[in-house]
């Protein structure tokens, strides 16, 4: 059984040495020009989907929300309040209500 582990340790030792050597050798960094993907995915259509699409995905993609657990109305209200108060999302009172209602329908918990 030990044989399965020992070779790994040996290889790691080499990697570490190689890394140290290379790190010490870096004398210049190379400019980067890359493309970072964005997402154009919209929220599933339904009552309030216009409000959530118009107000939320400028700062973060929809999967941020869709990957959240089911939460109570109170917890969703807190999330929307935090976006407005702490992160300065310019959301009208009517839209904030529509967004909370949408979230409770889509990702609600009792």
């Amino acid at each position, binding site marked *: 059984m030990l044989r399965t582990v020992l070779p790994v340790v040996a290889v790691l030792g080499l990697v570490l040495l190689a890394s140290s050597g290379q790190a010490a050798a*870096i004398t210049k960094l190379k*400019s980067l020009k890359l493309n970072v*993907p964005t997402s154009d995915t919209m929220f599933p259509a339904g009552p309030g989907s216009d409000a959530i699409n118009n107000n939320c995905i400028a700062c973060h993609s929809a999967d941020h929300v869709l990957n959240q657990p089911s939460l109570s109305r109170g917890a969703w209200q807190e999330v929307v309040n935090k976006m407005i108060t702490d992160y300065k999302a310019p959301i009208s009172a009517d839209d904030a209500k529509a967004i909370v209602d949408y979230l409770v329908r889509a990702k609600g918990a009792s």
Partner: protein
Amino acid sequence: MQDHDVQPSGLTRRRVLGGMGIASLALMSSPALAQQTVDLHVPGGPSTRIITTSYPQKGRMIVQRSSPPWLETPFEVFDKGVFTPNDQHYVSWHWANFPSDIDVDSFRLAVRGQVNQTLSLSLQDILQGLPRFDIAAVNECAGASRIDAVPRVAGAQWANGAMSNALWTGVRLKDVLERAGVKPGAIQVRFGGLDEPVMPGAPKFLKSLTVDHARDGEVMIAFAMNGEQLPLLNGFPLRLVVPGWCGVYWVKMLNDIEVLDQPDANYWTATGYRVPDTPHNFVKPGETGYKMVPVTRNAPRSFITNIRDGDSVSAGTPASARGIAFGGDCGVARLDLSIDGGKSWQPTQLGDDQGKYGFRQWQTQFTLPARGARALMVRCTNTKNEAQPDFPIWNPAGYLFNTIETTHVVAA
């Protein structure tokens, strides 16, 4: 990055990413609709996440959020070595507005505020003009494993891959501050990067350390990880490395260092990233009347990496277990394994010490005595004699989860 050639006998390794089986088949039969996924096995869901290879300089990553990116390291990576490969080092940004085009000749790092001389350092000044050093250190998000909070809480739903270990190379923050000359009366040092909020008026992402911490000789301005320049998404060209402290302090694309003579009042230092000031930062849901404090140091954690939930292990035959541990803000003193759900513990052998802030590998052998469902657990005790707790850590924002991990197996 290849897997081990030799399969430990007595173990039936689940197919790589059990949850991917069907998605992989779909990929082969219908490339146009292909979408690889991973099942994070979270009660209450949503459990499935997309696997991507479409981010620059990044290999296979779990998408927790497309933009700004939250990319999680797939767990099987941690079984392959003590250092996380740069192309699978996890990624987390607060604001979507950061450059993807960085010119190394025009980039400057400012050092300003309560200093005798304001500095504007080029990358050549930093790479050529200051002594450099290496340090192994784990970068772990304060919200790592938030998906395990019960009850669940809002925030990045990280599983166990919001942590990565690298050998960092850079210069001492202390040396840079000395060059500028910190004035008497300075109390904090604040760090900012090239990322900017999308909405006007939103708080720019900034974090601060005390002057003493900033000058401890370990806090690093890193220009390389694992021997290569940083990937863009991990903070190219410079990032702060704060060994032993949560990833939120490791400011990426660092271009501004401001020495303050007043406490930093910005949102991210004064308001965000708060935990209860209680043992293990633990409170009961609904509990009130406790003080909130900023997240600071990492907590000890450990994982079995070669056996996954749902695997079967031969009963009555020796099997091997191995994995990783880290002490938080100090080294690993011991790593114990339990094969009876935490009733009794046996020591394991620790691997080479790469530095007290990095991952420490461990390995051992064990024999499950009889057939049936078994719970394997590992517990790290750090060099400050702090052990992982055996009860589920919970706090309102889901920070600093470090409960002992349990791997459910079937002895067959």
